[in-house]
């Protein structure tokens, strides 16, 4: 057992955990933040993507113990004052989802893409979303939404 102190969506959470606990389980089962999804559990699908100290990572491929002292942002932490994050708004506007299961990870990844590359072209968006799998949409409207959020004409 270890004690970790992780700042999640701006609030410091100090918890005693089993060393083998994955960050995604910590978020979902300890903190009740079930917006972060477990899709494949084999580090392929990206449904569990969160931001660790501002960078997109797969929370199913990280021990909670590794995140001790870090800042974590989940999909629940994106909206401000009851308003959707511009990326969430773009996904809604352009219908960048069907079943919605991949959407939290997709949006966290997309926010990270624009942090690194503020004005990507379509090819870049597709390459950068390689770590996120969507089995419904064929990605068309997801890419459209990310381009729209970047200010590009979609």
């Amino acid at each position, binding site marked *: 057992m270890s004690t970790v102190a992780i700042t999640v969506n701006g609030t410091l959470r100090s918890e005693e955990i089993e060393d083998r606990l994955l960050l995604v389980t910590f978020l979902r089962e300890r903190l009740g933040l079930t917006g972060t999804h477990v899709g494949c559990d084999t580090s392929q699908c990206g449904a569990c993507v969160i931001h660790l100290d501002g960078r997109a990572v797969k929370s199913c491929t990280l021990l909670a113990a590794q995140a001790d002292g870090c800042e974590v942002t989940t999909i629940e932490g994106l909206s401000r004052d009851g308003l959707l994050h511009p990326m969430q708004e773009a996904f809604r506007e352009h219908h960048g989802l069907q079943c919605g299961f991949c959407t939290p990870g997709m949006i966290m990844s997309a926010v990270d893409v624009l942090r690194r590359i503020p004005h990507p072209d379509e090819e870049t968006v597709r390459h950068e979303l390689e*770590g996120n799998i969507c089995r419904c949409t064929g990605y068309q409207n997801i890419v459209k939404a990310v381009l729209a959020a970047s200010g590009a004409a979609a």
Partner: protein
Amino acid sequence: MDNVTYHRAKTLAEAERLLAAHPDAKLLAGGQTLLPIMKDRRLSPANVIDIARIPELKGMRDEGDALVIGANTLHADVLTDPVVRGRIPALTDLVAVLGDPHVRHLGTLGGAVATNDPAGDYTAALVALDATISTNRRDVEAEAFFVGPFQTVLGEGEIVTSVRFPVPRRAGYEKFRHPTSRYALAGVFVAELAGGTVRVAVTGAGPRVFRLPAMEAALKANFSPDAVKQAEVPASCLGSDIHADRDYRAHLIHVMAEKAIVKALAM
């Protein structure tokens, strides 16, 4: 995942002490290979030692004829480093297709080297560029370092600390990805080194990274994609499985080599 005890080392000396106390422990850097195989219980170490925050393993320095990159350097940081892009753009190209952005935000050079995944990308660059791997105990030439699938010459208590990449005249990397796993079915790194030596290293196509002497000789005489068309790929180096048989892998190696040479020529 089975029970495991997590230790965090803040310095290299502390990591060495922890390894001495727990000789069966696995070192955890980015964890992008280790954690998936612990989750499906292919490996269940009793202890892991997190070395990701050891400051002396971080950082990069330009030595003029070589770049020395610390073992803890993230793939994402190699990707965006202007010095790497300026000196060894083929390395930037390679890291750009290593894993995906999330993997690159946690995965490290030292982790990739010590893991020696037979379909990893970095191993091809290290062997082709004639890189030297430094550990807490010694320096090892890359070609002697990678022994077999997930096997290296690292001994008990040994920790990769940095890699020295000689700056080549020109180099290029190209891989054909497995459509599902996205790992290389065949990845080829072609380099003409500063002294004029040509080295060609292949990853993903066999149990370990290997060089192609026939291709190297052909390129030494004529550094062009046409030169390698007839070069032999020894069948003994190649793996064969449901994803790709030996003939197909040999074919892919030729195609990837030609593309890598075109990239090197465009530098």
